[in-house]
């Protein structure tokens, strides 16, 4: 089946880009003496559907396309982009980017050859090619299920978003790479009211797949999760404040890894020596229980990619092995600096942005403990189940996470639901304080989006049940106060 939306620069497109055109543009880009140049062609289409007050209230679609040209000279980058694929517009972008390297000898670019591998996106039919009625039906099912499940549910809204991003990358090393990256996400948000008390709950997920996602995680299942969360919150009590043991649920809690250690292992911060992991390869930086990997090859995960935005083929990067720091996530620039090869972490939000070292699917691998034993081992603490989001200060590793679902642990049992829980700590310290790891590793299907220097990219996370001895819980209830 022919996709409805296809890139003008692709083979047989209206502005097909072949090796000859790429070579001419690369030659212009390097004409002022740059060391390296790449071309990033992108065509992306996204759609969204908002179901609200029992109707499909609005539907949206957006098309964005352009070419980003990057020229590097030493540590300096020249960047320019254009939004149409006429040769004149592309030539002008190449000339603008070339300015960074005034003077010097022109370099003749090499011939370009296509690289690639097996696809990591299990998509039979791209969601954008499926009739809109099918997506409307999914949203209706979610809405109906949420309303039917409890009379205290006063509001439901559900949304579905889909996109496909087609990219073509050519660089002055003679590499050419192409990818077509599909992505879907579903979300439901409910509000429950009981007397004057109003609370919200939500659930969502997705990945690089088609509508078959809903065969496994049905709209009804998500609706039930959201309603249960809102109802639990109606009974939630104020969270304790102070230091205590924290147990993280499997899957979603991987976001803590992403913030607490992931960012600090992006090679740009280490190249600049502004990360607290700088110059520490080979040192013990976490409890020996911890092995952390970033793996772009997971089938269908939100963070998975076949090629990165610099045309490299990413695999699985081992970052921390049994507590010892093994490596950083590299893009081309940092790999040149460290004298290594780029390992597929060069990503960018769009053709309007230059690439940086970024995560794909960041995971703490499973351990030996049973989740029940882990909870039983805690006298007074917090069980963190669902996370709203987090943030880290790379320079010292301090982080904060907000929980959307968390519970008190009392005498080895998960008891009352808590509201307004924040976890605050320091990445390296928290990683050293990992004292138990479950054998229940899980990849989250949550809708994680990572922001860095104003650029957002979709990512995935995963982890088992984790016990961290002593973390600061930011609630309102001061013990003994």
């Amino acid at each position, binding site marked *: 089946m022919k996709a409805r939306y296809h890139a003008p620069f692709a083979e047989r497109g209206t502005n097909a880009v072949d090796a000859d055109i790429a070579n001419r543009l690369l030659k212009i880009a390097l004409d002022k003496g740059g060391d390296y140049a790449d071309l990033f062609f992108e065509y992306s289409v996204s759609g969204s559907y908002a179901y609200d*007050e029992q*109707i*499909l*209230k*609005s539907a*949206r*679609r*957006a*098309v*964005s*396309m*352009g070419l980003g040209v990057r020229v590097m000279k*030493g*540590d*300096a980058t020249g*960047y320019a*982009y*254009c*939004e149409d694929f006429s040769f004149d517009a592309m030539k002008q972008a190449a000339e*603008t980017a070339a*300015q*960074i390297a005034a003077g010097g000898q022109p370099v003749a670019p090499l011939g370009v050859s296509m690289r690639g591998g097996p696809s990591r996106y299990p998509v039979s039919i791209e969601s954008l090619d499926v009739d*809109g009625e099918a997506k*409307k039906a999914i949203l209706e099912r979610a809405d109906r299920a949420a309303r039917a499940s409890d009379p205290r549910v006063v*509001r439901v809204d559900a949304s579905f978003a889909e996109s496909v991003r087609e990219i073509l990358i050519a660089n002055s090393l003679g590499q050419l790479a192409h990818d077509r990256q599909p992505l879907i996400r579903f979300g439901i948000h409910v*509000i429950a*009211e009981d007397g004057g008390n*109003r*609370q*919200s709950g939500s659930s969502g997920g997705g990945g690089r797949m088609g509508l078959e996602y809903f065969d496994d995680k049905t709209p009804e299942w998500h609706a039930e999760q959201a309603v249960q969360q809102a109802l639990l919150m109606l009974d939630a009590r104020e*969270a304790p*404040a*102070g230091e205590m043991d924290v147990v993280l649920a499997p899957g979603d809690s991987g976001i803590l890894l992403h913030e607490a250690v992931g960012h600090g292992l992006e090679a740009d911060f280490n190249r*600049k020596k*502004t990360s*607290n992991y700088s110059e520490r390869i080979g040192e013990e930086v976490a409890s020996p229980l911890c092995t952390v990997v970033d793996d772009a090859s997971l089938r269908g995960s939100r963070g998975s990619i076949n090629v990165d935005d610099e045309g490299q083929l990413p695999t699985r990067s081992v970052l921390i092995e049994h507590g010892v720091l093994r490596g950083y996530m590299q893009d081309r620039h940092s790999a040149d600096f460290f004298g290594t090869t780029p390992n597929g972490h060069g990503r960018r939000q769009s053709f*309007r942005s*230059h690439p940086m070292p970024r995560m794909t699917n960041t995971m703490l691998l499973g351990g030996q403990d049973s989740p029940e034993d882990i909870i039983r081992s805690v006298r007074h603490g917090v069980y963190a189940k669902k996370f*709203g989001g*987090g*943030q880290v200060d790379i*320079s*010292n590793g*301090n*982080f*904060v*996470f*907000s929980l959307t679902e968390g519970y008190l642990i009392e005498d080895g049992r998960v008891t009352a639901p808590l*509201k*307004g*829980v*924040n976890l*605050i700590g320091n990445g390296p310290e928290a990683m050293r304080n990992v004292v138990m790891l479950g054998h229940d590793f899980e990849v989250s299907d949550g809708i994680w989006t990572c922001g860095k220097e104003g650029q957002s990219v979709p990512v995935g996370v995963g982890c088992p049940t984790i016990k961290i001895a002593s973390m*600061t819980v*930011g*609630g*309102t209830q*001061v*013990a003994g*106060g």
Partner: protein
Amino acid sequence: MSKVEEEGEALVDLGRSVVERALAAGADVAEAGAHSGSHLSVKVRMGEPELVEEAGSRALGLRVMLGQRVASTYTSDLSEPGQRMLIEDAIELARLSESDEFAGAPDPAELSSQSQWADLDTFDEALSQISADEALERALCGERAAFDFDPRITNSEGASFTRARGVSALVTSGGFAGSECGTYASVVVNPVADDEGGKKRSGYHWSASRHYEDLEDSRAVGEEAARRTIAQLGAKKLPTQELPVIFDKDAARSILGLFAGCVLGGAIWRKSSYLVDRVGSSVASDLVDIVDDPLLPRAPGSRAFDGEGLLSRRNVVVAGGVLKTYLMDTYSARKLALKSTGSASRSPAGGVSPSTSNLILRPGSQSRDELVANTKHGFYVTGMMGFGFNGVTGDFSRGASGFLVQDGKLAAPVSEVTISLNLDQLLRRIDAVADDLDQRTAIASPTFRVSSMTLAGS
């Protein structure tokens, strides 16, 4: 006619043609937004250029209604096939949508026209003349000033300078046609210092303005960035306790931003705000006055007309602690059986929703230093982290850093703590407001003090 006015006219013509074609294709209502812009952005690090980025862009956004079925589309592909797809997709999606009894364009009688629009002085032609070399020099000067300020500044995340200009047009089938333009410049310096235990402290400071002449000197920005970075060295947790909390103007702005999200009409009719049914009641201490003013000259959030073409107006949101109004577009006003406050914002992608323009918490009469001097014991917050806010309930809990206040003076630096209190309580407990408001941001507040909050630390 100046060059930028011609650009505005051309975008209006483009918008008009898209609206006509959408109507011909079957739309009952069509509204097109056309945008063009360009920017130069440079970054330096350790005294060397790191990035020079320069580009221009154009885009079209379209919202259509078939009866009361709504859809919107966006494209950066302005070619004929690109425009055709924009219109066809919008019609197709509107057919899929279901009728919403509250949907509709504003009453044509409410639309504004050129003679009514205030000149807000948001465009500075001089900015577009700044070359990459000059931009690099401004950034280098800022970074150098940070290094020169204190030898403990040993590293840098860099310094950047950006200039941008944009022109937008809106054309609606109800009869509105207009364009506006703006420029923006900013300088940011981000030094790093080594702290004990191998930790580093990264701090920053920035200046931003509509006009080049209003931009703070790079040197001053760099020195302030260094001062802030050094001040955090040796930061420690505080013991868990209840205490008065002073939010400096950056942190205070962030608190005001949370309130902003809860006062928008969309959050109210969705019942996803703790401010539902609160107009006319007390939502803050009587020291608190909040206005949304789109008509301030040279301010970042100024606009002569709103995203639906209504005339912009100054709205008093909170007076003496009492909530006076929500901020509404046409749709949310209809949902609430009220009138639009001229607060519609249209996203480039074509969607319309209410937004704040320049939301300002009005300054008090004492200086920031006096406010601190009048605080015997407390926590002075300069930075917050994380997303711990629930608009439905107002529950607030965030990571914070800053300084311990002892006997009216800023003392030891503090980090890795959280502060918590429901936003409703927080605003009611404001017991002092300083006079240090500035206009760098569209949401702006002076320093204020909250009489008591929970701090969680060691």
